[in-house]
């Protein structure tokens, strides 16, 4: 048997053992899928973000107050409860909602009378101000403020012209109504958001929570499993089975090569199943670019296997390995944006994502799934991952000892 055949036999054996191992099944497939579905369906709103629970208390129930309610209702990232001021406040106090928008009774009539009025945006002190809610409310308030300016201006001109102050109230109210008519059906200036992707027009769709959680947990758990199973080499070295293999006519290169190929193959099968379930069951657009996907997965597994070999080379006991695996896999997974969309993190954390393979893998997968890129669009990420892989492997193989 040639060295390559021996290596292949070792690799296939380790794959066969893994496939029959129920613990491995749990860790490699069940856990990532459970987490994907849980997290993805919980945060199904805008690209994996939590849909923000917001209550709007509208005691005025006028055409002006309803402008706020209608505008809030159209925002996908918000889950809106329409109720009274008292109830909205109570929901906020009970932490049922993150923010409450409160419109007092008499809101519209104050506007019509040319008096100042305000809408409160209250937020849960534990969660902090909610910029999105405030901005949306400001947007509608701006519209009404402009209406009021128009009403005030018209009334002032009319009084100046006719020298009859008594006509102002009625005229002001009608001018405000007329001004508000300028906003619907089309406002003077509409701002249309147009998501830019590389998808053909008919394949464009709104992002779902699964588009973040499916690649996210695949990236995290594939790395964890690869590092864990490479670290099993430590056990073999500790037990002396590695040294024993050396007494057979098998070269060091064939043994290590076979072990590495085994870890890589296990990861490949795991990833293929996670991607397949994501695509077929969870409706995640993994299949947009099969070539790009293959490049990324291939390169990511190099990085994952390489990290595992490096860890196996550095640590001496099984206990050390078991301690270090979560440290070197979970922490970078968090930094790399596998748990939450990286855009929610502050800029210094977004920069840190580039320091870990998971960050590159996530960018690459999101480029395919959400941005619809072809293989050319993920070359930088695949190259970076291959770079991580090469560096880990060089260090790992150089440091690796059989006994």
């Amino acid at each position, binding site marked *: 048997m040639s060295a390559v055949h021996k290596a292949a036999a070792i690799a296939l054996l380790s794959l066969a053992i893994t496939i029959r191992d129920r613990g491995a099944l749990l860790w490699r497939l069940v856990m990532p899928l459970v987490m994907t579905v849980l997290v993805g369906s919980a945060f199904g709103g805008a690209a994996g973000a939590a849909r923000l629970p917001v209550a709007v208390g509208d005691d005025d129930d006028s055409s002006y107050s309803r402008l706020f309610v209608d505008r809030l209702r159209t925002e996908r990232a918000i889950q809106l409860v329409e109720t009274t001021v008292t109830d909205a406040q109570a929901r906020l106090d009970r932490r049922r909602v993150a923010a409450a928008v409160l419109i007092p009774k008499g809101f519209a009539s104050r506007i019509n009378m040319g008096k100042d009025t305000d809408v409160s945006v209250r937020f849960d002190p534990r969660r*902090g101000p909610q910029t999105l809610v405030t901005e949306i409310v400001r947007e509608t308030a701006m519209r009404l403020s402009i209406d009021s300016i128009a009403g005030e201006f018209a009334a002032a001109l009319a009084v100046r012209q006719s020298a009859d102050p008594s006509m102002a109230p009625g005229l002001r109210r009608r001018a405000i109504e007329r001004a508000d008519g300028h906003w619907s059906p089309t406002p003077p*200036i509409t701002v249309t958001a147009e998501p830019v992707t590389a998808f053909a027009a008919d394949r464009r769709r709104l992002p779902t929570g699964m588009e973040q959680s499916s690649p996210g947990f695949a990236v995290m758990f594939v790395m964890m499993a690869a590092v864990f199973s490479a670290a099993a080499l430590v056990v073999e070295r500790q037990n002396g089975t590695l040294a024993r293999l050396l007494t057979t006519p098998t070269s060091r290169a064939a043994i290590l090569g076979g072990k590495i190929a085994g870890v890589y193959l296990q990861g490949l099968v795991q990833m293929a199943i996670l991607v397949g379930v994501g695509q077929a069951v969870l409706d995640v657009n993994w299949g947009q670019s099969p070539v790009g996907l293959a490049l990324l997965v291939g390169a990511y597994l190099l990085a994952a296997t390489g990290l595992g070999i490096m860890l196996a080379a550095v640590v001496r006991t099984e206990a050390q390995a078991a301690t270090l695996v979560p440290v070197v896999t979970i922490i970078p997974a968090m930094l790399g944006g596998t748990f939450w969309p990286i855009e929610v993190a502050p800029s210094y954390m977004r920069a840190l994502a580039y320091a870990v393979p998971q960050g590159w893998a996530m960018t690459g997968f999101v480029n395919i799934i959400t941005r619809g890129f072809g293989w050319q669009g993920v070359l930088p990420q695949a190259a970076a991952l291959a770079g991580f892989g090469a560096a880990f492997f060089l260090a790992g193989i150089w440091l690796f000892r059989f006994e």
Partner: protein
Amino acid sequence: MTDKTLVIALKDLSIRTRDRRSAVILLAMPMALIFILGLVFTPLWSGTAEIQRIPIVVVDQDRGEIARLFIEQILATGEIGRLLRIDRAGEASAARTLVMRGRRVAGLIIPEGFSQAVMTGRPTRLTLYTDPAQSIRAGIVQSIVTRFAAEIAKRQIAVTVAAETLIVERVMTPDQVAAAIPDWLRDVEEFIDHQAVAIAEERGAGPRFAPAINYYAIAMGVMYILFGVSIASQGILVERREGTLARLRTTPTTAGDIIGGKLLATFLTGFTQLSLLVVFTRAFYGVRWGSPLLLAVMISATALAAAGLGTLIAALARSPESAEALAPAVILPMSFLGGSMWPIYAMPPWLDTASRLSFNRWALDGFLAIMDGATTAAAIAQPVAILLGMGVVCLAIGTWRLRFQ
């Protein structure tokens, strides 16, 4: 409790405290995660994340007066400058590419004829290219741009509406209005900055907003105490396999003493771990945990419930290895459900309901109440009672199923 129980418990505990591996997993790991989660979420929760300016690119295809005013005066103003970081691109295609690659969150295209349309009162539109992979921030940009676009339209609306109204109400004739409009365009300035509808952004009732690091100090502490007790209870399985449990039974020590000792050790492990995390997060991250007395009660109840759960997992597993695989498979999803990974108060209602079945939820509720400044036992009575109930039920089933050989 007999002396033997105590001896067994203390022996187990002293072995465990000398294990460096456990120290890393049970203390260093949560400390690191609390740190990272705090760094990520503190700016987001405190509302300062958006103040880190969102990068957008603007393309002026109009090159008219109003577009220039919009870009140079309105978008560059202090308020918006704090929210957005704006740069320019010559071509829409360049902006499109920047957004598609995710380098800018959004691209604002001011179309040809924009100024003309605004000045003549025709409806017009601005196009905002957005990156679907950054849709949260893109939503904020859209709202800001819409609001400030309205700013440009306000003079035009005010003058148009005044003209329409005065003609319809027969205050002035169309000819008089036409003659007056140039003056009105100047007169309107006096009215234009008035904000009739103000936004009062207020903090709701209740305790002050706590930085994310405080929340995650609790959340991770509660999650890792589960890992702690599950590792501790796996020790029972190791002893069973190595036969030391059976050997212990040949001595005049009752099964009750042994189980009692092991459970006590598991409980003490959890209690020590959580107490150390409280001390460390206080010392290193400045987390203020609140009333020490209530905290001691809460830590005890949490450790007891965790010990119950750990014992149950150990009792259901056949070997230490299967317990090691089973424990995270129970702990991780339950921790997600219970708010240890993402705050309970950011969850959709169904998840909020489901979380009540988890250990983490009640532990979190209790600790959060204390952190919020609770000083009376009543504030934590419900979580403590539920945790004790969970602990007792799990312990009962666990000890019933646990085998010595």
